[in-house]
């Protein structure tokens, strides 16, 4: 069972998941709107890193919330809303790939996000890390996204991806290792 209030990962995303569930007495529409406002940001980020494309992420999110609205009555515990939405989003993403293959933009051409504007070398590092995340295979990228953006514990990632815990730990380990390796290579190239 997921409990979004207890994380072993205190990320900026994880904190968002601690929002209280909305009052049950409020209308269905109001409850839905509260859900959208609370989780659309994290879900968008999850979608973006999953599909590596802004407009597809946007479409994915629209589909996800439409489906969530239709199945809203099935959400019994609103504390589990975020993981419920992420599951819907992952399924929607899989459906989209079943329907058609997208002409994804070459990741080398993607404009790198300028989220923070500190020192120039940090910007470069962010851009390189951005690219490194894009380059990660989906089997490493997805558990990492669930951990960081989703705020999932290892056991919860295992449940969501239908893997055993050891496999999830290995993938998380390798994901971070690969990122560091790629980052160090890039930095070496930048400053030599």
């Amino acid at each position, binding site marked *: 069972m997921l409990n979004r209030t207890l994380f*072993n*990962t*205190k*990320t*900026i*995303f994880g904190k968002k998941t601690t929002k209280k569930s909305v009052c049950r007495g409020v209308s269905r529409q109001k409850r*839905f*709107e509260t859900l*959208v*406002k609370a989780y*659309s*940001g994290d879900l*968008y*980020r999850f979608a*973006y*890193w999953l599909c590596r494309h*802004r407009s597809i992420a*946007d479409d994915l*999110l*629209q589909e996800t*919330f*439409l489906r969530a*609205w239709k199945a809203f009555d099935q959400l019994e515990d609103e504390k589990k809303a975020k993981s419920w939405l992420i599951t819907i989003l992952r399924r929607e993403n899989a459906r989209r790939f079943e329907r058609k293959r997208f002409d994804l933009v070459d990741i080398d051409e993607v404009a790198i*996000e300028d*989220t*923070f504007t500190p020192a120039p070398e940090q910007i470069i*590092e*962010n851009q390189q*890390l*951005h690219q490194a*995340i894009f380059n990660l295979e989906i089997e490493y990228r997805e558990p990492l*996204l669930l*951990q*960081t*953006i989703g705020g999932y514990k*290892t056991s919860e990632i295992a449940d969501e991806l239908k893997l055993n815990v050891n496999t999830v*730990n290995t993938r*998380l*380990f390798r994901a*971070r*290792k690969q*990122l*560091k390796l790629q980052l160090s290579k890039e930095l070496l190239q930048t400053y030599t």
Partner: protein
Amino acid sequence: MDDLEFRKNATINPETQEPQFLQKQQQTSFNRQFVQEQQRFNQKLNQTLNVNIPENLAERLILNQQLNQHKQISHKKRGIKRLLASVATIFIILLGSKLLFIPSGLNSEQLAQQVMTHIYEDTHALNVQVEMGVPKSSIDTMLAPYGGKLKGPIGNVSFLGHCIVGGKTGVHIVLNTPKGLVTIILLPKQPINEVAKLVDNHYQGILYPTKKGSIAIIAEQSQLVTDTQLKIKQNLTWVI
């Protein structure tokens, strides 16, 4: 927890607060430094992952949901309207069928009853006063669409007109004889299988099958009915 496991845990999740991990972290300066490095990387990773979200994202999502809901409601309403329209159409068709076609299945008795009802309702036919009578040509014109034709005169016709009996059209003729008025109703579209007698306190009559449909003859006296039936038999022909 050995060193290898510690380093693995620190890499996977450097923010973990598990007691064993924290204890191992404090054992050596190398361990502390290692965890700090992983935490710094974790911070960079989170900063990078924290991409900007599109403006008014939540509002757009809510709007999309509401538009979709509205569309679905409209679609449902249209569906219900279409369904109601279909039901109404079927109902009208069935009602029309009932009004127009059910009488065609009348048997002799039922049709005889319809004829008597018509006689009593259409009093105008019996009250028409004419001096010259309706010419034979008019009767032929009236019978032509049904394929009927008179070979000779059937008597002094005081009334000639179309009528509807049992839901189908027929020809209503009234003969003015010295012994009284005789009503003849030709029903080319109302075939029957057997003869039916029409009897009540005022009238006597007969409804019988012919080559085309049926004929009813009604008068106050049975003799008038018999005489008229004979005249009809002798003079009326049907071209089928």
